[in-house]
């Protein structure tokens, strides 16, 4: 039981990193990133390949994954700068699909849909329970670091610029702010954190394949952030933990509803997530922990 709880908190922590990443780009700067899963997979594959093929030490590979995530994020915003918000959403969605197709087809590098297995853990897997606890501690530390970083951004004057860009990009530009540069930098930081989450996922589960990084993953993170509170980093973390809690706790409802079949239990679980989301949007559209208003 305890190793199950440890595993779920570890996964929730990885989701929390994804939610913080999305909050930076979408929550604070208003840049819709529907390609989040693509950046997560870039991080996972970068770190997974560097450790399994080139034998890099795990910390170095994770760092490299973050840099690759950052570079790809910067490159993508750079080419889409002239696009309006809704176009950015479409381009990022397409970008994620391009990444997925590249992973499926570049067999020499990624083994296609067979995926990459045997990725070493951040803590050696041989330690068993120690591996679980150690990875949990490191994942929580990474979340804390991401939170600290993202909240520094949010509370700084730079963060005010971000909110200004989100609410009125033209006005911000007229006020003399370099909107382009701010957008590129923020998106890069956001995708670096997404890559970090992907790298953690790869080293934790030891196996990655293109099917893991489906658009559903992006949707889950949007769900977590919306429930937690868009624009609030604490809300992002809370939403991620709440999402995993709901997804997992709903499993334990099944034994108390023996009148339903296994298929119905599965459907009830999916409905529960949807109902919770609709209720949040109806009664608390700003999320559980909404964005605080600043000076």
């Amino acid at each position: 039981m305890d190793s199950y709880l440890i595993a779920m908190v570890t996964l929730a922590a990885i989701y929390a990193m994804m939610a913080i990443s999305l909050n930076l780009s979408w929550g604070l700067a208003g840049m819709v990133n529907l390609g989040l899963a693509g950046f997560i997979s870039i991080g996972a594959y970068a770190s997974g390949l560097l450790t399994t093929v080139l034998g890099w030490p795990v910390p170095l590979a994770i760092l490299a994954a973050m840099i690759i995530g950052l570079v790809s994020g910067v490159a993508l915003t750079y080419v889409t700068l002239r696009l309006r918000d809704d176009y950015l959403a479409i381009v990022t969605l397409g970008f994620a699909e391009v990444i997925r197709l590249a992973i499926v087809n570049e067999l020499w590098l990624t083994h296609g849909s067979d995926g990459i297995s045997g990725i070493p853990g951040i803590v050696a897997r041989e330690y068993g329970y120690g591996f679980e606890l150690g990875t949990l501690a490191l994942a929580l530390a990474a979340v804390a670091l991401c939170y600290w970083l993202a909240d520094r951004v949010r509370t700084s004057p730079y963060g005010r610029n971000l909110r200004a860009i989100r609410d009125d990009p033209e006005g911000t530009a007229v006020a003399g702010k370099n909107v382009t540069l701010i957008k590129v930098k923020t998106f890069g930081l956001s995708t670096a954190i997404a890559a970090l989450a992907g790298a953690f996922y790869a080293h934790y589960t030891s196996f990655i394949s293109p099917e893991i990084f489906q658009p559903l993953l992006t949707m889950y993170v949007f769900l977590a952030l919306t429930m937690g509170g868009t624009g609030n980093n604490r809300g992002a973390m809370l939403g991620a933990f709440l999402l995993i809690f709901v997804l997992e706790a709903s499993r334990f409802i099944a034994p108390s509803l023996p009148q339903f079949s296994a298929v119905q239990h599965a459907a009830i679980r999916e409905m529960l997530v949807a109902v919770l989301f609709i209720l949040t949007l109806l009664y608390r559209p700003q999320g559980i922990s909404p964005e605080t208003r600043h000076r």
Partner: protein
Amino acid sequence: METLNLTRRAALAGGGAALGVALFASRASAQTGPITIGCLVPLTGAGSIYGPGMRDAIAAVVKQVNGAGGVLGQQIQLVTEDDQTNPEAAVRAIRKLINVDKSVAVLGPWASSVAAAVAPLCWENQTLCAIVGSADSITRLPHQGFLIRTQPSISMQAARFGKLAIDLGGKSIYFLGPQTPFTQTYIDVVAKMAHDKGLTFNSQIYDGSKTSFRSEIDSMRQVAPDTVLLGGYVTDIAVVLRELYRANFTSRLIGFGTGVNTSLLQGMPKEAVEGVYAVTPSASLQGSAYQKLAALVGNPAPGPFEAQAYDMINLTVLAIAQAGKATGVAARDAIRTVSQGDGTVVDNAPDGLALIAKGQKVNYEGASGSCDFDQYGDIVAAKFKIERVLNGQITTVEIS
């Protein structure tokens, strides 16, 4: 500051609820009575047309075995989780089956991506895992014997494809199919078979979402193959067959059951599909285990995955009985003792349990086939159904 308070309250409530679930679940796992077997099948997502049937077949056997007194004097408790045909969700689900429910075995992972993702958790936690997912690479993982697969691997399916082409007298074989995760394996396997026999082999991979394949067909016709293997699904095969017919192409055509089936026939002119062959992994339709399964689930024609699920649970139960111990390691060590060898042939768990209780050896022959496994956990031999379109109807040529 109001928002901060609320956050704290929410965090507290969340923490409390988590603790509640933890206590509830630990109480559930504290019961030492029954032997728990996990069922991890797709109940939602792309595989959800197969998962429920697999689950029902497993549940029917569990009920049958429990009715006959259980195994090792203990009842079997079946716990089902939905893998959502999604490897990320499946990893969380199998964690619950292994860590919370303490499953001795996990049966069912259907999609290759799901099976590959959950496999490491099975061998790390010493839990037996029986899968369907057919990508060759899965059973080559370092699984220490904890993995068995009841579905023929992609290589085995490709080999049957190639064998039919050669048996029908093909001298110049051509593979024409869309890009899928399995296409390259098909080509490699058939190419080697053709090469070994000194036959000509060529291949071409196309983009399955295209609406015309005229250029692909033109370049194929330059080689003038006498046998063409069609690797596609219904949508692209329909286009290919129309264009081949229009081009007056008369060579032998062989497809997979996923592409050449009744739904293809519905939208096609009769002449364009006449004579086309189809190869499909099949349950062991004539076997006694298949008849028993049909009677047990009350369905005269269970599908291949239901047959495999039936075999998975029967093998697991027999292995536990043979080992005399309900642990994943014991089940792993005993599984090949009950699946193959010179023991008495049995086709269901209660019969086998009775024999094992008398100290006799058993050899389970299943609904999906003979269920003999090699050192990788792959089945040694598989049954395939060969069909052909004759007078606009799909007709079974043979099952072997």
